[in-house]
């Protein structure tokens, strides 16, 4: 049996090495993606454009404007005397917030009473930015004004925040391990999904079938070379992550390697199942891209926090392999926890992979 499987493995390796263009794509693409996304995927808001409407400029309003500009979060991109139609301002200047001061801002400020009225208009189209602006604007303005007036804000509670696992709040640290989950799954699934359909289309599958090989051997033989290729990709991603973004694996490498192999196995099995269902390569492609790309990006917790999803989607996300692998890889890389904490998602991944392979072999047998 080993001999026959190794024959298939060797045959598949020949296929891969002959198609060197695909090989280059498979090995170079993840590296480029890592570079681009490692830098680009940053959620830190900086220099959010703000326009100040100031009908009667005064020293106080000038100070207010420059203090807002001095923060990292905001950049004052314009200061105008009057705004008849603020909606127009949002469309024309792409401002995210408009701060409207009253004509008697300076006087109101000193008079006390009910306080100087300030209207803050926020572009809520992006709810995330809208929420952040809504939460930060009022305390910020209050702080600045207190400062201008030389007042001491009353202190009742000091909140001391400690940020764990990613103390510098670098987005790359969060996204790069996540990217590993996305890239490994996609590469593995794409490669295997076409492996069997190609033989179907070329008619060589029949030749394989009349050979003494049993379906299980063909399928396992097809999986092994791609497993090797994907593992190579995984190692490449880790090396680039370390060299370009200084990401050190906080946990142990053995846990990382074993769990990654399990994940690659499950991803390959997904591709395999698709390739037993699809009759042509086109069909396989139409299935593999939608079935893997968006769910893996959106429903796995790669970007959007899982807890924010509605319950029925949390159920769906629990059948997506990437959901579990993300838990594992972030746990190992960022938190430094080991297999003793993460065995549960690892076992689920393995079970998924075994299930998918069994179904593929069954389906394959039925075809014969």
């Amino acid at each position, binding site marked *: 049996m080993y001999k026959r499987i190794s024959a298939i493995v060797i045959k598949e390796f020949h296929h891969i090495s002959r198609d060197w263009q695909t090989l280059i794509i498979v090995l170079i693409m993840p590296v480029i993606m890592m570079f681009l996304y490692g830098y680009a995927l940053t959620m830190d808001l900086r220099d959010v454009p703000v326009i100040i409407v100031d009908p009667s400029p005064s020293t106080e309003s000038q100070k207010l404007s420059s203090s807002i500009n001095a923060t990292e979060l905001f950049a004052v991109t314009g200061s105008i005397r009057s705004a008849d139609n603020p909606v127009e301002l949002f469309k024309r200047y792409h401002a995210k917030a408009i701060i409207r001061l009253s004509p008697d801002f300076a006087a109101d400020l000193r008079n006390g009473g009910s306080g100087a009225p300030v209207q803050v208009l926020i572009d809520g189209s992006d*709810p995330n930015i809208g929420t952040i602006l809504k939460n930060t604007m009022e305390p910020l303005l*209050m702080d600045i004004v207190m400062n201008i007036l030389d007042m001491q804000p009353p202190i009742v509670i000091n909140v001391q*925040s400690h940020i764990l696992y990613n103390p510098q709040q670098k987005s790359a640290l969060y996204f790069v391990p996540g990217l590993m989950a996305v890239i490994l799954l996609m590469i593995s699934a794409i490669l295997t999904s076409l492996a069997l359909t190609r033989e179907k289309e070329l008619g060589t599958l029949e030749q394989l079938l009349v050979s003494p090989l049993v379906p299980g051997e063909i399928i396992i033989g097809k999986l092994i070379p791609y497993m090797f290729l994907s593992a190579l990709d995984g190692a490449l991603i880790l090396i680039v992550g370390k060299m370009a973004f200084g990401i050190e694996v906080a946990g142990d490498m053995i846990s990382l390697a074993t769990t990654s192999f399990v994940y690659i196995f499950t991803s390959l099995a997904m591709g395999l199942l698709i390739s037993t269902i699809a009759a042509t390569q086109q069909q396989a492609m139409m299935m593999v891209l939608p079935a893997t790309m968006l769910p893996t990006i959106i429903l796995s917790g790669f970007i959007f926090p899982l807890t924010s999803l509605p319950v029925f989607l949390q159920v769906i996300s629990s059948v997506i392999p990437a959901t579990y692998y993300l838990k594992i890889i972030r746990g190992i890389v960022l938190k430094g926890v080991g297999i003793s904490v993460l065995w549960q998602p690892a076992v689920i991944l393995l079970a998924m992979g075994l299930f998918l392979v069994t179904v593929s072999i069954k389906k394959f047998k039925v075809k014969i």
Partner: protein
Amino acid sequence: MKPIPLMIWKEFKHIRSDSFTIKLMVFPVILQVLIMGYALTNEVKNTTIAVMDLSKTPQSRSLIESISHNYLFNYRKEAGSFQEIRSRLDQGDIRMAMIIPQDFTTKLLHRNGADIQVLVDGQDANSSGVASGYINAIISRWQTAFLKKEMEKKGMTLQTLIPLQVDPLILFNPLLKSTWFMVPALVVLLITIVTSLLSGLSIVKEKEAGTLEQLMVTPLKPVHVIFGKTIPYFLVGFIELCFFLLFAILWFKIPFRGNLLTFFLFGVIYMLSSLGIGILTSTIAKTPQQVLLLIWFILMCFILLSGFFIPVENMPLWVQKVTIVNPVRWFMFAVREIFLKGSGIGFLWKEAIYMTITGIIVFGASILFFHRRAG
């Protein structure tokens, strides 16, 4: 018959004969609109939090209540020790922890105030930042209420302390609903995937089947083949665009404040690029596998760098410059502006120009490449 209509007719026959592909063009797309419409939320909700209360006074109780009653947090069992907090954070049971010290109540009215420790699982910089913001807002609200009570005891009012009256007003999406922002973007994503995949397969399919050579010996010019191959998928894309628009408006109840004509104008210009990307990939690649890998790679880059969920303005300057060639970015921006702000072409002409240029370059390149192959 003229060459181009002839090619179109041929391509439609191909599509019709492959009923499985038609099904794949329709059902997964509907399913994805439905699921993703609900899934695409960048709100931070249900953040798990546990509190360790060493003070156990009415004041600390009332502070904890203001957190446990807040719908943004998922309040978990109280923690008994530092070790417990740390291990629960490690396991992912909680993402935040708050520690109220023993001297909390006595220090509240001191000059320097009472200290509270907040531990945050900071893996995801965005959600931990937003959740910290919520906690700070809750604490500051509690603090104001507490101060007010204390001042009233002394017969003063709080207003004398506050020189400013901030009145925030949120425009365009007053309830800050994620769907309003994300569903228009979803329209863009799906139209991109469908059109680029379909056109991407069209030429390489004939390469593998060996029928491309037959096409080449006919009097058809490369231009005829390219246009004949794209126009059918352009029609398919246009129908899906209408469908997505209806779905967004009728099912997800997203307000459409702009002009329909502007929307479709942008759609047509955009499909020039998205179909072009597919066709270009298809002419360059040798096998369907290569097409798939290349399109996946291009789409991943274009989608993640489009401002879909991470504002392009956040990215480093050089990345922002690179994204000028990204048609998804401009279409995404335009569609959201048209939907939510009702912006017209007067504000969006720049985006239209960028997209047109990309489209022309991509199409031109695929005709050129096809020429070389054919010649």
